[in-house]
């Protein structure tokens, strides 16, 4: 029997690959948008505008303090109640972008604030503008402490993206659910699901480790 289901599963591989593609699309788009928004919000959060800092801080706390499943339900099922109707795919990308951006905001703000105050003072004293200080002095130093956890966050993003299956996006996890109804070998089916996630995440995990080692080497050299 097991052999029969295994052959069935092999036949379902194209379906799984579609799921992989969907996971990569949702996670990839959220990665791009989340990184952009996270950097902008992180820079503001580490800046001097107090009201903006407080608003961003409250948003970060709210997103970090609520389950992602609830956030995605709010966007997909509750927003239509006030006239904002979204398809599952854009709803998934928006929810995941929002989640990722909030975490990246904290990583970026933390990296910026970790740059010693004297660096900014020296740049101020030599007449560099705020933008120039950020661009040439602060960010190049902050990026060393930002990059490793940033890539680590991307790993979490890929895994968290499995939650979007709950609103009907046919990603790897959803494909698993659908397949297990035909092939009632849960261990086998979800073993494959796990393997596919791992195949996406493993290179990222290695990249994060590589960056961590490299950044440590660079900062001790400097």
């Amino acid at each position, binding site marked *: 029997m097991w052999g029969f289901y295994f052959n069935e599963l092999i036949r379902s591989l194209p379906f799984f690959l579609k799921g992989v593609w969907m996971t990569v699309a949702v996670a990839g788009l959220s990665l791009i948008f989340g990184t952009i928004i996270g950097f902008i919000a992180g820079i503001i959060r580490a800046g001097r505008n107090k009201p903006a800092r407080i608003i961003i801080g409250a948003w970060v706390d709210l997103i970090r303090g609520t389950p992602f499943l609830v956030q995605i339900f709010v966007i997909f099922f509750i927003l239509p109640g006030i006239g904002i109707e979204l398809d599952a795919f854009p709803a998934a990308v928006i929810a995941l972008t929002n989640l990722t951006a909030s975490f990246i905001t904290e990583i970026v703000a933390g990296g910026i604030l970790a740059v010693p105050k*004297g660096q900014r003072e020296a740049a101020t004293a030599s007449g560099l503008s705020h933008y120039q200080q950020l661009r040439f002095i602060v960010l190049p130093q902050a990026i060393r402490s930002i990059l490793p956890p940033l890539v680590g966050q991307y790993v979490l993003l890929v895994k968290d993206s499995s939650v979007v299956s709950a609103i009907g996006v046919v990603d790897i996890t959803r494909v698993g659910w659908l397949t297990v109804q035909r092939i009632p070998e849960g261990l086998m089916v979800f073993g494959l699901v796990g393997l596919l996630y791992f195949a996406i995440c493993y290179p990222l995990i290695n990249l994060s480790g590589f960056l961590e080692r490299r950044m440590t080497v660079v*900062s001790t050299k400097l």
Partner: protein
Amino acid sequence: MISFKNVNKWYGELHVLNSIDLEVEKGEVIVVCGPSGSGKSTLIRCINRLEPIQKGELIVDGMKVHDKKTNMTKIRAEIGFIFQSFNLYPHMTALGNVTIAPMKVRNIPKKEAEKLGREKLTRVGLEDRIDHYPAQLSGGQQQRVAIARGLSMQPKIMLFDEPTSALDPEMIHEVLDVMRDLAKEGMTMMAVTHEMGFAREVASRVVFMDEGQIIEVAPPNDFFTKPQSERGKAFLKSILTH
């Protein structure tokens, strides 16, 4: 060149600068000394508004530093500032440190800025360290790069905030030598320092501060041989006998 008129500053309750009046002429070398916490670092940090003042007038090279509307970029470009902890940019070479402000603030083309930078680094005796990163340099060398960085903006004024306090004793002289040369070339300078040999040799006047006030201003020989205030006497005794 630098004019303090009844300048006051508070940190909360603490009155860090109390009714400061001081005129510094072009080409003068002013050494500021006093016990720790006397406000001497704050005094020079106000000149390029690293610290804002709360009351009084502070005019530098004809520009009102006390006025919040004043565009500080222009004034700061004319003032070199040397920190106790060097504050070199660790991700840039010595030459990178020295050329960034001329390129970005004065819009000097890269080639020209590098020529200028080499010139300034040579001047502080570091022509063979141009491509080194700060972490590859000794403390004394780092501070000399910092001085070259200040000079690369062709400033009218150089400010020094305890430039030798973070240095090992054997490296102090190499920094003081550079400062001495600058003073002799007519640079307007204010230096917070306890290097009394330097003060005696090149200072036009010594400013003695305590508890946020200027207690005495006198030519170095007068201050060191016959301080007028009791606090000045006590301070000299404490630093000369240590």
